[in-house]
C-alpha cells in the first residue's frame, strides 16, 4: 500500500511541476490531468473511494476537458516566456517559500494521532451526514453552481452590436 502511495505522490508532484513549468497550453493541461488522477487514486488509497471516483469524474473527466476545449476553441498558442522572473516574481517566490516553511514548521508540531482510525469508506455514512446534518451547506453549494452556470453564460455571450 505504501508503495502505491509513493508512486502516486511522485506522479502528482511531476504533474504539479509540469503545470508550474510547462509553457505549452495543451501539455500544461495534461500535466494537470496527471496530478488530478494521482490525487484521485490517493483518495482511494486513503479509504475514500467515493471521493476518489468523484474526483476523477469531476476534475479529470470534466474540468480538464473543459480546459482543453477552451484551448482548442481559442486556438491558444505557446507563449514562450510568460514566467515573471523580475524582482516582482522573485519577491513572490520568497513569500511563497516563506509560507511553505511556516506551514512545514506547523506540520511538525501538529497533533496528528499516532494510530489513525480510518472512517468507513462506504458511501452510505457520507450520504447520511451530507443529507441530514449538512443539508443546508449542500443546498447552498447547489445554488452556487447554478449561479456559476448563469454567470459563465452571461460572461461569454456575444452581445448584439449597437
Amino acid at each position, binding site marked *: 500500500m505504501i508503495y502505491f502511495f509513493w508512486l502516486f505522490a511522485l506522479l502528482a508532484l511531476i504533474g504539479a511541476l509540469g503545470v508550474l513549468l510547462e509553457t505549452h497550453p495543451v501539455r500544461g493541461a495534461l500535466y494537470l490531468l496527471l496530478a488530478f488522477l494521482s490525487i484521485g487514486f490517493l483518495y482511494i488509497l486513503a479509504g475514500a473511494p467515493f471521493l476518489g471516483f468523484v474526483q*476523477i469524474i469531476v476534475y*479529470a473527466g470534466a474540468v480538464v476537458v473543459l480546459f482543453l476545449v477552451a484551448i482548442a476553441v481559442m486556438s491558444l498558442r505557446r507563449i514562450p516566456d510568460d514566467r515573471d522572473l523580475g524582482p516582482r516574481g522573485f519577491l513572490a517566490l520568497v513569500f511563497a517559500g516563506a509560507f511553505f516553511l511556516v506551514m512545514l514548521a506547523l506540520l511538525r508540531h501538529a497533533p496528528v494521532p499516532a494510530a489513525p482510525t480510518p472512517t468507513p469508506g462506504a458511501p452510505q455514512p457520507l450520504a447520511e451526514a451530507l443529507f441530514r446534518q449538512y443539508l443546508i451547506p449542500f443546498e447552498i453549494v447547489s445554488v452556487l453552481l447554478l449561479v456559476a452556470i448563469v454567470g459563465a453564460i452571461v460572461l461569454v455571450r456575444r452581445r448584439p452590436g449597437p
Partner: protein
Amino acid sequence: MNHPLLGFLTAAGIVFFGVLGAAAYLVLAERKLAGYFQERYGPNRVGPFGLLQPLADLIKLVFKEEVVFPQSNRWLYLLAPGIIAVMALLPLAVIPFAPHFAVTDINVALLYVLAAASLGTYGVLLGGWASNNKYSLIGGLRTANQMISYEIAMALALVGVVLMAGSLSLKDIVAAQQHLWYLIPQFLGFVVFLVSMFAETNRAPFDLPEAEAELVAGYHTEYSSMKFAMFFVGEYIHMVVAAALMTALYLGGWYGPWKPGFHWFALKMALVLYLMIWVRWTYPRFRFDQLMRFGWKVLIPLALVNLGITGLVLLR
C-alpha cells in the same frame, strides 16, 4: 492453487477474452444485419456464412502500413487509441455476469463506470488534437462536447436506479431486481439512459464525431493499421459494455422466468445489441445543434423529472 489472486486473474481473463471475441463477432453481426436491412447478403465469402470474416479483418488490419505523420504530436498520437480501448474495457471489471461471477464487486461500482466513461473522452480529444488535422480536431471537439453533455443525462438517469436499489454496487442493483425489473418503474430513466448510451458509444444517430460526409472520418482520419483497429475495436467493446450495463441496470441482469443464470444475461445483451444495430441502420444522423439542443433541453429535463418522481414515490 487457491490463492485469491488466481481466481481474480482467471475471472479477468475469461471476461477479457470473452468480450474481445464478442466484439469481433459483433462487427460481423453488424455487417450481416446491415446487409439484411439493405436487402443484400453481407459478408459471406470467408468461411461458412462468413463466420471467419473477423479473422480476415484482423489479418488485413495488422498488415496495413503504419503511418505516423511528422507534424503530429507523436506521443499523444500513439497514446490516444490505447486510451479508448482501455477505458472501454475498464467497466467490465465490475459487471456481474452471473449470480456468482464478476471480476470484482466494489461498493462504488457505478461511479467507477462513470469515471471510466468520462476518461474515455480523452482518447478522442487527444487523438483529434495530436493528428494536427482540422477535420480530426473538429471531430475530437464535437465528441468532447457530446460526451460531456450526454454523460450528465446518463448520470442523472442512473441516480433513479441508485435511489431504488439503495446501493451503488452493480451486484446489489441486480439482486434488487429479482421480482421487478427496473425497466418498468424506471421506464423514463431507461429511455434517457438508452439514448445517452447511443451518444456515449458515438453511434448513429449520434455519430457526429466521425460524420464522414463532413469530416472525412473525424478523429481517426489520420490513423491506420493497428492504431485504427484499436479505435474500431474500442467502439465495439464500448457497445458490448453498454449492453451489459443496460442489462444489469434495467433488464434484471441474470434473472429470468426460469433458472437464473448467465444465459439470461447473454440473451438480454444480444437483444440490446440488436436494437443498437437496428437503430444505426434505420435513422439518419442528427445535426450538431440539434444534438446539443436535444441533449440539454429534452434528455436532461426528462432525467430530472424521472429523478423527481422516483424521489417522491420513495419518500411517500
